């Protein structure tokens, strides 16, 4: 007995429904099929250099790789959800505190993952969140201190399944 695999079944189902949809909206079938067959092409995406990542935020200020930690898994099986936690060694007082934290990606279509605003009222410069990664890359966390200088920390993450590619 011939059985369709789940993948075949899904593909056929999506083709047929997409055909219906294309017909109803007046799109030509050929055009729609080309859209369906196309997978997000990230082959031309290249790893940005550290200077490219940082130059948008740091112009003439000091930039030091110290007093800060970025923790991410070495191997992330799923790029859709990668835990990230960072910590800046700062007393978080009115005189000396972290004002902004930028989380930057080397490969994602959007270089900036998130921008976070902190202040002395936070008491501790520690943040955890979950990010998306589109492939094996380096993640940079950039912290702006209240004196205007910057600190950074990096983490190299291997990603087996990228977050912005359709596989099915």
């Amino acid at each position, binding site marked *: 007995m011939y059985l369709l695999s789940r993948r075949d079944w*899904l593909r056929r*189902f*999506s083709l047929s*429904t*997409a055909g219906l*949809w294309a017909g109803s909206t007046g799109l030509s079938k050929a055009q*729609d099929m080309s*859209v*369906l067959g196309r997978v*997000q092409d990230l082959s031309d995406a290249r790893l940005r250099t550290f200077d490219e990542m940082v130059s948008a935020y740091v112009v003439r200020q000091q930039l030091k790789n110290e007093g800060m930690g970025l923790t991410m898994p070495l191997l992330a099986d799923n790029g*859709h*959800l*990668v835990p990230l*936690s960072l910590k800046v060694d700062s007393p978080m007082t009115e005189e000396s505190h972290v004002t902004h934290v930028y*989380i930057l*990606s080397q490969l*994602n*279509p*959007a270089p*900036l*993952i*998130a*921008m*976070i*605003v*902190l*202040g002395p*009222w*936070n*008491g*501790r*410069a*520690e*943040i*955890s*969140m*979950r*990010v*998306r*990664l589109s492939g094996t890359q380096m993640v940079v966390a950039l912290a702006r201190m209240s004196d205007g200088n910057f600190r950074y920390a990096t983490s190299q993450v291997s990603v087996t399944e990228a*977050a*912005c*590619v*359709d596989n099915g």
Partner: protein
Amino acid sequence: MTAARLQVPARIVEGDVFKLRLLVQHPMDSGFLRNLEGVLVKRNVIRHLQCIFHSKEVFRVEPTTGTAANPLFEFYLRATTSGELYFRWVDDKGYIGELRHNLVVIPANQSTAPKT
């Protein structure tokens, strides 16, 4: 539709630095993926999320497509006095999400019981 959950310690004494965990239910559609019918899903991410306490912004995050779906944010806050924590976020569709939490802070001179 959009829901959020906030986790704070059960007992907060004045002067403590305590951890807040905020989980927001949001698809964070990146605009790069297609649905089952092969149609590109429009970008819909949270543009900014802020936490307001005593009418002052104490935490602000501006996520982009690089932030995972159902974003979780963990951050710290120094306890001063009791009050209402007010979270507010806006996404690309213009939806405004809100979460209010009544924060109870025990004054330092009343905290005789040992801290757990």
